[in-house]
């Protein structure tokens, strides 16, 4: 093979090498170590570890709290991810125009993304305070009696979902805006001249052209939401009555409250497996159907 030929063969590897090197050192290796810990009874602080094979997995599959967390995680993700994606896409489409004032709207929609998740959780915790919070003040204006929000097992999960959705929409909207940017304005004009309605245009042209962006948002958002627990930690501590305990909370609790890193790692591994299954399904379902 000629030198040029070899260079061509090597080209893709050279492109991905720097990033893969970084990931190998700072992600792949620690992940391998971290997940392997799931087969050990590993006392984080003293470093003492004993091989127990599937012991952690057996223990956790027999624990009702684990199953409760699974259910809560499923509930949370089944609602939040689609909600965020649809709303973010909707907003992006709405503001993706050359009308006066759109810049202002785009900036205002982005505001939730400029506060960190931890700070946002703290602020919303105050907002949801049943006696002192902004939420009940606003409801009072429209005549709705004060709600318990985070102190009610029925409302807590919904309250957390609302807050997470508020934050997430801003974040994903900018990605959709970038995706929409690539769809040339002339297409839209031509379609409208031909008599197509805005909705038809959106459904038949915009959406299919946006598929790759949508795949990204759906998959990345899924991963992020499955791993989310700061809002639960700050606002409800997993309660009331374990109603907001998600799997990641169990990971955190076992790792940093109980120092049982092996067990925490087992929960995390199972969570990873669940995520991978969901993501594979998403990739299959959302395969791009239009090439242009």
């Amino acid at each position, binding site marked *: 093979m000629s030198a040029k030929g070899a260079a061509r063969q090597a080209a893709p590897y050279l492109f991905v*090498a720097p990033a893969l090197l970084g990931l190998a050192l700072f992600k792949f290796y620690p992940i391998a170590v971290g997940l392997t810990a799931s087969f050990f009874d590993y006392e984080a*602080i*003293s*470093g*003492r570890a004993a091989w127990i094979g599937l012991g952690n997995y057996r223990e956790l599959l027999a624990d009702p709290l684990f199953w409760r967390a699974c259910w809560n995680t499923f509930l949370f993700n089944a609602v939040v991810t689609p909600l965020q994606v649809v709303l973010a896409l909707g907003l992006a489409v709405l503001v993706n125009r050359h009308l006066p004032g759109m810049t202002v709207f785009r900036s205002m929609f982005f505001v939730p993304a400029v506060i960190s998740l931890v700070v946002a959780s703290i602020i919303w915790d105050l907002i949801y305070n049943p*006696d*002192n919070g902004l939420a009940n003040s606003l409801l009072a204006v429209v005549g709705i009696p004060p709600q318990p929000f985070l102190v009610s097992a029925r409302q807590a999960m919904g309250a957390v979902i609302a807050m997470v959705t508020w934050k997430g929409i801003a974040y994903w909207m900018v990605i959709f805006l970038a995706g929409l940017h690539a769809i040339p304005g002339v297409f839209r004009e031509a379609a409208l001249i031909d008599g197509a309605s805005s909705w038809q245009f959106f459904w038949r042209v915009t959406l299919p052209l946006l598929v790759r962006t949508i795949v990204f948002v759906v998959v990345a958002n899924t991963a992020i939401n499955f791993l989310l627990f700061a809002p639960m930690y700050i606002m409800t501590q997993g*309660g009331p009555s374990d109603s907001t305990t998600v799997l990641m909370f169990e990971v955190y609790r076992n790792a940093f409250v109980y*120092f049982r890193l092996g067990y925490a790692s087992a929960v995390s591994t199972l969570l990873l497996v669940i995520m991978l299954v969901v993501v594979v399904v998403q990739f299959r379902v959302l395969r791009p159907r239009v090439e242009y």
Partner: protein
Amino acid sequence: MGMTRRTFAKTATLGVLGAGTLRSRPLAAQEKITLKYLSVARGEPRRQAILQVVERFEKAHPTIKIELSEVPFDQYFQKVSVALAAGSGVDTFDVDSPLVAPYGHQDVLLPLDDYVDKKDWEDFLEQDRQIATYGGKILTLPWSSSSQAVFYNLDMLKEAGITPPSAPDNRWTWAQLLEAAKKLTKKAPDGTTEIYGFVVEQVDRPYQILPLLQSNGAQAISPDGSKTAGFLNSPEAVEALQFYGDLYNKHAVSPKKPIPDAFGRGQAALFLANSPHVNQIRRLFPQTRWALTPHPSFKKPVTPTGAWHVGVFKKTKHPKEAAALALAYSNAEQAKDNFKIMNYTPVRKSTFEAFPDEFRQPPNSLFYYEITKTAVRRPSTPAWREYEDLLRTAIRNVIDGGDAKKELDTAVARIDTVLARYKK
């Protein structure tokens, strides 16, 4: 042409990584020892105490440099855990007193017996000496303790015609406190509560609530430390916890979601809290006029206690120096300055004696009484972290309206499973 750019970028990236390994610290004229000191971030002015310790120590030991790291309170344990687990990053550090047993069990604390003067050791209160010892060795040095009392709003109670007792022998029963709280709770026209009769500093922590159970006659754990069944979920414990839960639900004298600074802002009439709040409220909410009444009791008075010790990491490279630092923080002289600045309840008899005016008059006289006569420390068990978390969940569920017996039974079952693991 394209090749050159690509190679350059790659090399630059690798260079960035490589340069890190070649970075060397500038060496001082004489080889200085660096000690890493991890402390909880206490904010002004209380952090002046540790700054003072560092300054004095560095002056007394010119070859030692202290790297002080103040860590946010909520994340302190996480940071310490990673440092301990990774085997570096800490030499001397704050140890929350009930963690002496777990850390001792995990063998991460350097025994300090050789560094402690036996006579000086007797200066510490008996309780604190017990907490600091595990497996027959001294593992930490106490430097602060805690005690609680009920702060009450003078104006609100006067208006309601309530005069709480000031002497510990006369203290309120919980039933009496409840009666007072009911009278003091005020609702707004729209149904929300304007003033809560009674609020508690640490709403769901065992530190705060275990004494209630113990005051009613329950025990935290079996004497040999092997189980909680029959102890933590005894009928006395259930009764006490249910009473506590009723404060939030049946009687609604306490808020289910804590209101920040409720007492200082005049949104609560009675506030069961730790001694540092004396200075805190004076400073942040000077318009609120208050006085103290002793911690209520069911059958026999029990108050919470225990706070911070200082320990040395077993794998430290400088055991002598790190131990010296721990001693500097906790010695009798520094203890007096610590009290003046931080206002934690003292752990040394000499500190109490050094401030006779403080401890013979309210409010600190009350704390002195409680610490010496009614304080019961948290159980010393290697499973404290799990115990605390599981009991806390039970307490929280009861606050949310759950049944005390069911919650305690659940917690006890889980705690005992954990304890069984530690027995092996």
